């Protein structure tokens, strides 16, 4: 099926080369980091995780969100998702690829990455995270590839993938739960030390992931003959709506506990994020942008009139996606480190090198996504009209 990725229009190839160019720039930036160390980033003794780990955390959520298609389609036999389940699975593959790369670029001694395997440490959440993430990548590769292969031949997928598909459901939940446990089990970081962290992670993932997927599906519909259909899009949009309501609700629960209890340690990080602490306000504009976007997106999604308007829907989805990205991709990780263990504020701003590497990793993800989608669309266009039959 790979050959489908090698035949494309001029626009397809321009896009591929643009991505390769961005990856090249990111790679050069990484070489610089390789040479001088993580000192080229904005990270510090106080804020020792930043943009890379935050993107990793966010993208685990995007990866997990494929389950929002798998459950309705395979468990509830919701046929309308038939054409796009594969797009969800391939999005998951691309997202996990980026996750692994973000972990890699964040390491101080990347050549030693195999130490995690050579000295397995079941007591470390990071060990489990690497296990579940690689497992998830593997499951989605197998499931995606075999179901698509079967599709090409217009036969039902082989029986042995069914158990794998079912396994992928709890597995998807596990990747984001374990990722939340990276944070939620750490004593002394008040923003993270919350039992609701995993639930919040899943809610925000199930909002942001499907939001991105709808946007992709709409794009695919524009550039190819693969049309998921309005009903599939609207069903997904409802999933985004409910998940986003839960996400905002969970966040407000955090705000309540932190502020009403009045325990200073709990209130400080939130105060830093939304109002600034000791005159340090770097994240304040971002967090309020996220707040406005979250409510804007929610408003547009809740009212059927705006949700069903396909001109407005993308605005709502972009709002939700960006809000979730700022919340997890900036606020959550950085906020956990501020104030530091001595109640002092050291702020963090990513450097140009760091941003170039980050954009480079995203370009790799987009390249993987483009190639996989090209293949999926190619197969679906060949068998157009038959997909509904199974």
């Amino acid at each position, binding site marked *: 099926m790979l050959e489908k990725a090698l035949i494309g229009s001029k626009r397809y190839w321009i896009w591929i080369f643009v991505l390769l160019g961005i990856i090249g720039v990111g790679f050069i930036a990484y070489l610089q980091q390789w040479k001088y160390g993580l000192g080229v980033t904005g990270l510090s003794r106080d804020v020792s995780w930043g943009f890379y780990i935050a993107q990793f955390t966010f993208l685990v959520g995007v990866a997990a969100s494929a389950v929002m298609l798998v459950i309705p389609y395979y468990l509830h036999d919701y046929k309308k998702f038939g054409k796009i389940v594969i797009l969800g699975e391939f999005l998951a593959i691309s997202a996990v690829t980026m996750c692994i790369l973000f972990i890699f670029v964040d390491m101080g001694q*990347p050549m030693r990455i195999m130490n995690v395997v050579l000295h397995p440490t079941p007591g470390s959440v990071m060990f489990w995270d690497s296990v579940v993430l690689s497992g998830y990548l593997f499951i989605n590769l197998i499931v995606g590839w075999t179901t698509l292969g079967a599709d090409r031949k217009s036969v039902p997928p082989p029986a042995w993938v069914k158990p794998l598909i079912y396994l992928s459901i709890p597995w998807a939940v596990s990747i984001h739960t374990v990722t939340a446990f990276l944070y939620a089990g750490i004593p002394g970081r008040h923003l993270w030390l919350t039992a609701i962290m995993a639930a919040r992670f899943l809610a925000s993932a199930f909002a942001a992931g499907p939001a991105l997927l709808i946007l992709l599906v709409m794009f695919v519909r524009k550039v190819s003959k693969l049309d998921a259909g309005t009903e599939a899009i609207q069903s997904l949009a409802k999933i985004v709506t409910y998940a986003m309501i839960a996400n905002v609700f969970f966040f407000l629960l955090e705000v309540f506990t932190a502020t009403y209890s009045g325990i200073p340690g709990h209130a400080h990080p939130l105060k830093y994020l939304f109002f600034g602490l000791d005159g340090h306000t770097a994240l304040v504009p971002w967090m309020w942008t996220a707040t406005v976007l979250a409510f804007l997106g929610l408003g547009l999604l809740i009212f059927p009139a705006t949700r069903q308007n396909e001109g407005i829907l993308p605005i709502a989805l972009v709002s939700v996606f960006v809000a979730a990205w700022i919340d997890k991709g900036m606020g959550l990780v950085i906020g956990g480190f501020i104030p530091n263990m001595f109640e002092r504020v050291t702020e963090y701003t990513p450097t140009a090198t760091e941003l170039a590497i980050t954009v480079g990793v995203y370009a790799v993800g987009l390249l993987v996504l483009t190639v996989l989608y090209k293949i999926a669309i190619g197969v679906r266009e060949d068998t157009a009209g038959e997909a509904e039959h199974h």
Partner: protein
Amino acid sequence: MSINRRQFLKIAGASTVLGLGGASVVNSLKRGGLEASQMSPDPKGLVAKRWGFVVDVSKLESEEDYKRCADACHNIHNVPVFKNDKLHEVKWIWKEPFENTFPGTEHEYMSHEFKEKNFLVFCNHCAKPACVKVCPTKATFKRKDGIVMQDMHRCIGCRFCMAACPFGARSFNYLDPRGKDTDGTPLIKVENKTFPTRMIGVVEKCTACYERLSIGQQPACAEVSNGAIVFGDLEDPNSEVRKIIATKYTIRRKPELGTQPSIYYVIGGSEHA
């Protein structure tokens, strides 16, 4: 103090792990073999069930006294000194005012003097260390005698331990510690050839002078502290640390987090100065 063969092996094993022997992580088995055959135990080596510290800063009078403790540690352990780069600094022991050492304990009626009173902070060698729990490679681990060690050859630089340590005790080598400062001077002024320097991209911290204990010496900071830092076996009721803890009011940093720090700070000790 006597030392038996098993205890020696434990100490020697950890010394090599930290890089003294220069053995790589991969042949850890071979490493054990080397210890037993090529080194003989130092009968003077200090042993304990659980090493711990008592810090009484009333015995530190001037800025100089604090600096002497920190310098003693940083010099013999080849800790790089960054003149103008606070963000990337590496430190094993340093001073922090009361309100920063024990956040949440200060209050509005406390004398300004006490709030600002400096304490010495370093790794607490916690009995239940958060750093050890999270490390995905066992690069940071706890010895039987309570010392929380750091294997610079195994550390992958993921910095999970830095996120997890509630005491800010750990530093990451963002820049090459063997390199030069912005003004061209070496970051390690005078290298102590008997102690390993670290490579870029690994985490480090106070290792309770394990290398000095093994040859019967006290931790360097304790030695130059005028008695402000006392080192000893917390499990031994007759040790000096236990005697101080039994007679004076001591507190630990953030005990509510359950890591069980092994540094006890004497509070209000000025009358003992």
